[in-house]
């Protein structure tokens, strides 16, 4: 595998050459500071762009085109990285070896059409298409409570800090949807193309020089963009008293979401120690939470902890019966305390390291994971895969205890069902 990063002036091009895959995958990332009111607009925009274009006026025509190109996959979506919003377009295409000459090149041309030649008339998105996408978004946002697991998570974060980006709903908001028009969203689109920071990544088996030329040919961004580093969210907010919040919903199972804050971490702690801490606490099937709350007490089917190192948060989630709330909380809090006291073994650490190393190798077998790994290396300054494999061994038990002491529960949220 060979990695090359090329400064193309208006964007960075990341080429990962490998014979591992029969496909070539291309990702285009647009990135900017996140504003709450932009999320809904960006979601609409990615839906609009992947629905139709100037030359492929309907979804049907667009899909038929993708099928004719030997079933290319074309997807788009928005995520939040710390204080930034990241819009990602992905094209996955079989290598010409398995299709026919120029199929990749034609796919790239089509990809460029999707991004640069939207279904627009007089600087407004086509009204019929807009209506349709708008309606679909409205229905989805109206039904947000149907996904009780996701809903409990966002309610937990909103109770932790309603003003911080960590609590922004990435599905968007009905109120922002209502103020969006075919005109306003086109203006937004133009701005995004002009002002966002852009990265293009390609992975697969190709000739590096030729690939650079093809990308240059089909993706022309005109403006020079200054590099903006992604910032982690502030974590200096003091927790005065932990909040316990319960809301009712007519579901069978109650969903528990516990939001913890993490005091400022050093880069090594953030990238390595925190990962091992969370694995031991609730990151795999032999973790403390899994063993104590599920295997020994039969209170849950699933329970896990996930750290967000850019947000300085750790989230613990489980599905429980409402009458077991107190029991479950007591057990979970006990595990957090035991981690602080160093009540875990060297063997626990070795296991967590194995899981971590295994996940690094899984990354190498999946084109999408690999691209993300390289993208984040550049973006938030994390180490490359080989360095990570070595550095993870340096984490000591004392390091983990130190991190454990920086983690405190801020909010305990229960979306309470009506069955016990």
């Amino acid at each position: 595998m060979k990695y090359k990063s090329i400064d193309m002036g208006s964007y960075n091009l990341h080429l990962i050459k490998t014979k591992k895959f029969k496909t070539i995958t291309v990702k285009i990332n647009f990135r900017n500071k996140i504003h709450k009111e932009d999320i809904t607009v960006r979601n609409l925009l990615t839906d609009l762009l992947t629905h139709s274009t100037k030359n492929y006026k309907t979804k049907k025509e667009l899909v038929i085109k993708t099928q004719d190109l030997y079933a290319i996959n074309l997807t788009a979506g928005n995520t939040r990285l710390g204080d930034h919003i990241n819009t990602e377009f992905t094209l996955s295409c079989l290598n010409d070896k398995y299709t026919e000459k120029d199929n990749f090149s034609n796919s790239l041309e089509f990809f460029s059409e999707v991004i640069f030649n939207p279904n627009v008339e007089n600087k407004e998105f086509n009204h019929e298409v807009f209506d349709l996408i708008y309606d679909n978004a409205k229905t989805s946002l109206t039904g947000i409570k149907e996904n009780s697991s996701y809903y409990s998570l966002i309610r937990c974060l909103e109770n932790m800090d309603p003003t911080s980006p960590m609590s922004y709903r990435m599905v968007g908001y009905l109120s922002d949807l209502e103020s969006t028009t075919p005109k306003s969203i086109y203006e937004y689109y133009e701005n995004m193309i002009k002002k966002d920071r852009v990265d293009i990544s390609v992975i697969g088996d190709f000739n590096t020089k030729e690939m650079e030329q093809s990308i240059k040919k089909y993706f022309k961004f005109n403006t020079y963009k200054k590099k903006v580093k992604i910032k982690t969210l502030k974590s200096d907010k003091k927790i005065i008293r932990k909040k316990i919040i319960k809301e009712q919903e007519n579901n069978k199972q109650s969903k528990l979401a516990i939001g913890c804050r993490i005091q400022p971490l050093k880069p090594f702690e953030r990238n390595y120690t925190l990962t091992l801490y969370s694995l031991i606490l609730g990151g795999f099937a032999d973790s403390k939470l899994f063993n104590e709350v599920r295997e020994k007490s039969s209170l849950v089917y699933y329970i896990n902890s996930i750290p967000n190192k850019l947000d300085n948060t750790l989230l613990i989630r489980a599905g429980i019966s409402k009458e077991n709330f107190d029991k479950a909380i007591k057990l979970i809090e006990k595990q957090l305390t035991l981690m602080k006291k160093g009540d875990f073994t060297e063997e626990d650490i070795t296991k967590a390291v194995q899981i971590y190393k295994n996940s690094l190798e899984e990354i190498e077998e999946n084109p999408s994971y690999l691209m993300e790994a390289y993208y984040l290396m550049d973006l938030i300054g994390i180490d490359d895969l080989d360095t990570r494999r070595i550095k993870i061994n340096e984490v000591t038990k004392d390091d983990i205890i130190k991190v454990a002491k920086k983690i405190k529960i801020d909010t305990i949220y229960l979306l309470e069902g009506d069955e016990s």
Partner: protein
Amino acid sequence: MKKVELAGLEKTVFYEKLENGLDIYMIPYDDKKNYYISYATRFGSITTEFTPEGKKRQIKVPNGVAHFLEHKMFENENRESPFVFGSKYGTGYNAMTSFDSTQYICYGTKYFLENLEFLLSFVNEPYFTDENVEKEKGIIAEELKMHEDIAETVLEDKLREITYKNHPRRIDIGGSVEDIQKITKEDLYNCYNTFYKPNNMFLLIVGSFNKNEALKTIKDTLNNYENHKSGTIIQKKYKEPDSVFKKEETITKNIQIPKVGVALKINKDKLKFKDDFKLDLYLQMLLSTMFGISSDFRETLREEKLFNSFYTSMESADNFRVLQFVSETNEPDKFINYLKKSIKEIEVKEEDLNRIKKVWIANEVKMIDIIDNTVYNQYDDILKYGNVIPDKIDIIRSLNKKEIDKIIKNINLNNIAVVKMLPNK
């Protein structure tokens, strides 16, 4: 070992049938670091009435027993649990129960032989006690409740309940919270001793490993289990009528957007088409061309704003094939009428057929590139057709309008069941 080339995919399946009857399929990759092992029994939720091994009378075990048994296989008397073992080696262990099979899986990048041995061993060492059976009930009850909160799952369950009259597919895989309370360790042993027999099981290994070493480890490990011999399986046969059990039903749930499920029930014997694999391809072709993302049907739904989401699937139950359509829509009645009308007017166009063939062939190539996908793909074929399908791409190429037209002509397009799910407030 028998060599079977997967034509057009640059991969070889190495097949071996052990003396005890176990089928082994191995697909080695020399350019991957990871591996994925699936050890499966052809025993799933639909089998609850059978004659236990060594006994004479047929018994009925509670619904959900196959899934319960799957959970309890992770408990061992003389060795650590797969979760603990896997954590030590950085490998993942899991298991899945479906209507007609239960599989135990292991995936990782290192210590292949150790993990292969462990997987085979723990699945061959049942250890059920009154105490550990009791303990599992709380965990599984939470799992079932979690599923009951997912609207699509409830809708699909209801749809099967009114599609089938007698076939146990009408019962949810996990059973109900009440069903599982009745399960005892005797139930589990009866099922285990009858269905976890080598001639009822298969082993599928894909990824980075050496096939000769693997085969040796399999033989050595299974030699430790002397009782592990093939048995005869006698289970209840169900007489299922051709027509759907009920034509329509409306249910309510804590949802905001109405949902609709539609099933077209087909007795495949009436289609007079001999090749099961090809017939299934044709029925899926019918779904893709007529109701897939590039169909006129969807385009009209979009124009009329009749749906928010929509997906189709096909399931097999003995000699029945059921085409399922599930949608989220603000206009359930309009949607149902339009779908019914479209089903009645099914006619596959040649150009659509040819385009979808191209898509399917491309997808086969893409799937073989990712180990997990290869496992899912081959597992389905082995389970359904009793073997891997080496010339799948050629068969896809051979699909034609003449044959699909003939099949469609023989389908009773009015044999439809409909479930409407409406918000309960």
